[in-house]
């Protein structure tokens, strides 16, 4: 199923381009994270508010900010922040969502009631308020952002998986596995999970997108990343700059974020269509 789906997706041009864009972002982020690319973002490279220019090299292409720092370097560091927020959130919340979703759907009964109560409670607090409350009480910073986003992201995956597991529980293959004496563990991990993997992957794509968007909002509220430039902070800085004619910082962050969001959205759509033939249009 996977090979067919992936072949179906990547035989077309548009999803290929989107995948390439995402890979480019990931490579840039990885270079910044592990090889110190653009690490000199906080060193002034010229006068305050220089417009984008070709002379002066790569670091001047997007101009400078209020402290004369390179906007190009800041966008690159922002890419690193955005992707780490997205990826860390998705990989932290997926196991939690899988665990609660499977346990609750598979065992039912009192455990199910308790998990459902917990999930309903958390989703009764509007997402953004829960995000604010968690990152506020955790103290500002990257760790708080990770925890807040993880705490809010696993809920929808758990809900979807619970429904899927309940649906699959009555199917013949699981009944057969049970009659062959497979343990609960074996039935969940070997038989059930492979059948819902596509749901997990799609949810994770969605989580990455939501996480990156939420980071921008939290940064605007001053609850986001503290000592690194992020797209959210750059857009927030631009509030006062736009009226003085400084458009490059806002545009750079907006365009970078737009390309990433657009690629994730489109690729996610193609993946959904390929993995779930019923929903294709």
């Amino acid at each position, binding site marked *: 199923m996977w090979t067919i789906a992936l072949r179906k997706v990547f035989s077309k041009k548009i999803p290929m381009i989107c995948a390439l864009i995402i890979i480019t972002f990931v490579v840039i982020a990885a270079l910044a994270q592990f090889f110190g690319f653009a690490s000199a973002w906080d060193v002034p490279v010229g006068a305050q508010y220089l417009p984008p220019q070709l002379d002066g090299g790569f670091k001047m292409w997007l101009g400078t900010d209020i402290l004369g720092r390179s906007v190009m370097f800041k966008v690159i560091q922002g890419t690193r922040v955005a992707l780490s927020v997205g990826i860390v959130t998705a990989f932290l919340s997926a196991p939690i969502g899988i665990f609660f979703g499977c346990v609750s759907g598979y065992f039912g009964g009192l455990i199910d009631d308790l998990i459902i*109560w*917990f999930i*309903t*409670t*958390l989703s*009764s*607090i*509007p997402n*953004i*308020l*829960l995000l*604010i*409350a*968690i990152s*506020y*009480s*955790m*103290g500002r910073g990257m760790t708080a952002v990770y925890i807040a986003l993880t705490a809010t992201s696993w809920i929808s995956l758990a809900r979807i998986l619970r429904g899927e597991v309940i649906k699959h529980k009555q199917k013949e293959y699981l009944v057969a596995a049970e009659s062959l004496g497979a343990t609960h563990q074996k039935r969940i991990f070997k038989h059930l999970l492979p059948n819902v993997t596509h749901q997990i992957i799609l949810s994770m794509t969605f989580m990455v997108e939501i996480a990156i*968007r939420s980071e*921008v*909002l939290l940064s*605007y*509220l*001053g*609850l986001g990343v503290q000592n690194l430039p992020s*797209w*959210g902070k750059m*857009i*927030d800085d*631009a*509030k006062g700059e*736009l*009226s003085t004619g400084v458009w490059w910082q*806002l545009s750079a*962050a*907006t365009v970078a*974020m*737009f390309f990433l*969001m*657009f690629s994730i*959205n*489109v690729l996610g*759509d193609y993946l959904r269509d390929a993995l779930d033939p019923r*929903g294709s*249009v």
Partner: protein
Amino acid sequence: MWAYTIRRLMYSVPILFGVALVVFSLFHLVGGDPAQLLLGKHATAERVAVVRAELGLDQPLPVQFGNYLKEIVTFDFGKSYTTREEIRQKISDGFIPTLCLSVPAFFLTALLSLAIALVVSYFRGTWIDRVSVVFFVFLMSMPGLAYILFGQYVLASKLGLFPISGYGSGWGDRVHYLALPVLISVLLNLGSDIRFFRNSVIEEINQDYVRTARAKGLGEFLVYLKHVLKNSMIPVITYVVIQIPYLVLGSLLLESFFSIPGLGGMTVDAVNNSDFPMLKAMTTVISIIYILTTILTDVLYRLVDPRMSFGKRG
């Protein structure tokens, strides 16, 4: 119906208790000292102790939780730490401005995206459809803040079509000030709404009964109007209805950028000022209203759709 409503209200009691527990543990257990957060890093120890006593934070935790539950039941959350106003008063003042922004924006978005989705799905498979789908994903992918900043800068401060920010007391003033935020809010949500509506209409077009209707010689337009439209409304209405509870909170960003004195803007202020009592009260009150609105919309939804029963698990 009444039995259903009462049962839902009773179910919501453990949920409310859960919300209280989560909010309390976030603000009192997990975090650092709220008094310290409020005063900043450089406050003296004596000052922190005074504020702790003032906020009742020096009492044992069970007593604090008891006080908090009492606050919820009596709807008396004390005073805001920064403005010294009654929180109860502030919150009830915030409702109208928030709803004035969120309700018109909500209806406009729903109507406009439904109309566009119908047109687009009529042209499914042609270049019109393909180009517009790309355009809607484009709209969805723009960061929300960028819409607000560009909108405010270009339409209000450059072209002078709208006031830059503010809020009035009379209805005329309100329309004057809220036009731009409503417009931006519509643009913000249009992309994803149209895409969802289009997909649900097209999913219906591929059903067997549509083929039957075509086979018996019904014209494409009539098939559309009589069969497809009616059936595709079910997911559309569900999608619209689940957004209703969010209207109470409104948009944090829009309200704060356009200085609208609603609940969203208040939340932003509370965060900026580290106003601990205010933030806790806002989270609690909005969650409660959110739960109640969810019940209300569920009941109304069942009244409208006869297939949904008021039965036990329904």
